[in-house]
């Protein structure tokens, strides 16, 4: 079809924001819209800030917002966060994966056996490649289990709830059976770094370098987006918005790095390292870096790749996706495979953290993962959900637990609070969305 020329006027589409004097309270949303800020994300950040400040005020000795507690919080969040990113894509396609906790146990057990029983015999104890081989085994096994379950869902047509409920029972049993219920410990020395702990961190200097690199990344992304829009003569995000976003984004990153870097190696360990009396920053923990890396890669997959677009299309309208020529069944299998891969990665982090594998590994974890995705704005109706939302959801949940532990609240009451927050978060989201639709 011949393309018709479009005049410049027709290309100048979105209404410019009203001049400042015309802006009332009502147009705050307009303001955010012209700045292209995701208001839901902003809402979640606000909720997180409120939770943090509240706990800081009510915890004894105000220990919540300390480098030590925040550092621990970051490590505790990582495992659920890694898996929640995969769960978003599963739920977006109107499916569910109830088996992630059990798969974690089975894969974790397998990884423990590989590095504890098999590899020492083949390549020797504490071989530098032990952790690489172990992680590779975990990723492959996780992906294979995911692909298997996904195939039953997509090609046979068994509801994912049923398939993964079966998986929930099967893989837990398999995990027990692999070592007859015994605990396998300890883990390989290098492998253990994946779990964080005092040795599993990049140190203060590297944390700063990574923080600065992240800032550079934020600004570069903004520039590349502007350049691309410029090429087609599209509207640009107003300059004030660009600068504000860059400043807030970079500021937050550097502030967090600086804050976490003030968590120092305990004096006894510092003395062991021959640096008695010095403040040695632990820096960012490997599991946290893994979770951030996973978040970036998954966001890229979800928003910049055809696979991601297909996932959201299937969630929005499965029939339309099929009619548009999307290979819907293959896409579903891929979401489950990706989920399995991430479970494998999370299992590696988890057994490294515990320095052991037990068949009860990850018990109840599936619910935390699903809750994180849902608190992060993923809708069970399908088609809606973001990776960064799920990461924030995981952080919000872990913040609640961490704060309540500091307050000495008992576990059953913690569950009650988290449960209420889950329902409340979705309720608020539903109400706001209904209002926005009007």
């Amino acid at each position, binding site marked *: 079809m011949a393309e018709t020329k479009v005049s410049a006027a027709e290309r100048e589409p*979105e209404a410019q924001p009203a001049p400042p004097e015309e802006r009332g309270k009502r147009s705050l949303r307009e303001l955010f819209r012209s700045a292209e800020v995701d208001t839901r994300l902003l809402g979640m950040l606000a909720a997180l800030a409120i939770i943090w400040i509240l706990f800081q005020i009510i915890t004894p000795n105000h220990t919540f917002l300390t480098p030590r507690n925040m550092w621990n919080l970051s490590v505790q969040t990582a495992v659920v966060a890694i898996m929640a990113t995969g769960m978003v894509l599963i739920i977006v396609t109107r499916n569910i994966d109830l088996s992630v906790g059990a798969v974690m146990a089975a894969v974790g057990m397998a990884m423990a056996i590989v590095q504890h029983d098999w590899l020492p015999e083949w390549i020797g104890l504490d071989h530098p490649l032990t952790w690489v081989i172990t992680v590779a085994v975990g990723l492959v096994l996780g992906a294979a289990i995911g692909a298997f379950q996904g195939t039953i869902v997509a090609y046979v047509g068994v509801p994912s709830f049923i398939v993964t409920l079966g998986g929930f029972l099967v893989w837990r049993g398999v995990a027990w059976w692999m070592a007859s219920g015994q605990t396998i410990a300890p883990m390989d020395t290098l492998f253990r770094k994946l779990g964080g702990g005092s040795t599993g961190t990049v140190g203060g200097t590297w944390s700063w370098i990574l923080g600065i690199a992240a800032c550079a990344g934020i600004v570069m992304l903004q520039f590349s987006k502007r350049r691309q829009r410029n090429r*087609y003569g599209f509207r640009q995000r107003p300059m004030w918005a660009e600068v504000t976003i860059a400043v807030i984004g970079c500021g937050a990153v550097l502030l967090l790095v600086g804050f976490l870097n003030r968590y120092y190696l305990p004096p006894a360990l510092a003395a062991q390292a021959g640096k008695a009396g010095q403040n040695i920053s632990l820096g960012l923990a490997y599991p946290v870096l893994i979770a951030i890396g996973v978040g970036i890669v998954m966001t890229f997959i979800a928003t*910049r*790749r*055809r696979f991601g677009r297909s996932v959201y*299309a299937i969630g929005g309208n499965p029939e*339309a996706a099929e*009619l548009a020529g999307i290979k819907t069944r293959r896409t579903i299998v891929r979401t489950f495979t990706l989920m399995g891969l991430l479970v494998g990665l999370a299992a590696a982090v988890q057994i490294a953290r515990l320095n052991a594998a037990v068949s009860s590994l990850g018990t109840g974890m599936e619910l935390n993962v699903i809750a994180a995705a849902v608190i992060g704005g993923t809708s069970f109706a399908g088609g*809606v959900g973001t990776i960064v939302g799920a990461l924030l959801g995981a952080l919000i949940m872990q913040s609640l637990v961490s704060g309540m532990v500091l307050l000495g609240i008992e576990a059953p009451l913690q569950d009650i609070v988290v449960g209420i927050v889950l329902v409340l978060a979705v309720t608020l989201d539903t109400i706001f969305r209904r209002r926005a639709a009007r």
Partner: protein
Amino acid sequence: MTDRSGRPLAELRDIRVAFGGVHAVQDVTVDLYPGEVVGLVGGNGAGKTTLIRTLSGAHPADSGQILIDGEPVTISHPRDAKALGVETIYQNLALADNIDAPGNVFLGRELTTRFGNLDDSAMEDATRKLMGRLNPKFQNFVVPVASLSGGQRQSVAIARAVHFNARILIMDEPTAALGPAETRQVGDLIKQLREEGLGIFLISHDIHDVYDLSDRISVMLQGKLVGTVNKTDVTTDEVLAMIILGKLPGEVTQKDLAELH
């Protein structure tokens, strides 16, 4: 008047589709020439949509043959149809409501950069150009199509169908959800596309929707083809008699026609 001396663009021969024991379409044969609009009309459940879904790849025929440019083809998936230049605008529009207009226009056929990443700017640019032609008032390129009006959603569905150099266009009740102005706009577009040499199947349950636009009219009743007539040879009442009574213009009496009103 369309030139029908050459080879038909598309032919559906003896198409048969059954759901369980119900014969939705029985031995129906229709054809379509370049630069022609064929109105496919019939009451609810007459089998129009089912028939045409075999051409768009949404549902396979149980038996029968589909020919494109005189060559027998196998269409078992919408992808096959699109590869042959058959584009379909479904009655429910088949849009992914959570995705924006450019995303829907290019759904399943996204433009990518050389690294295989989605090229959202290029897709938006192409969609803007397309809309400049189809519906210049359309300006909502960055919001999910769920928030668009019926007419705007229709524009998105049409844009998707015409962007990929379709040769055969299937429009299922294209104006059912539209107001008068938008209906006229779709009508103008159909005429324009016909001028460009496309063959168009126009499906409707209401003869008045398609009478003016059609060159020929094929009427279905209870899964069977009543007949295909040149529009210039018949009145709307005579087509109505075909739709309701299943009688061809020669067979119909004045009494029949009187009873229709």
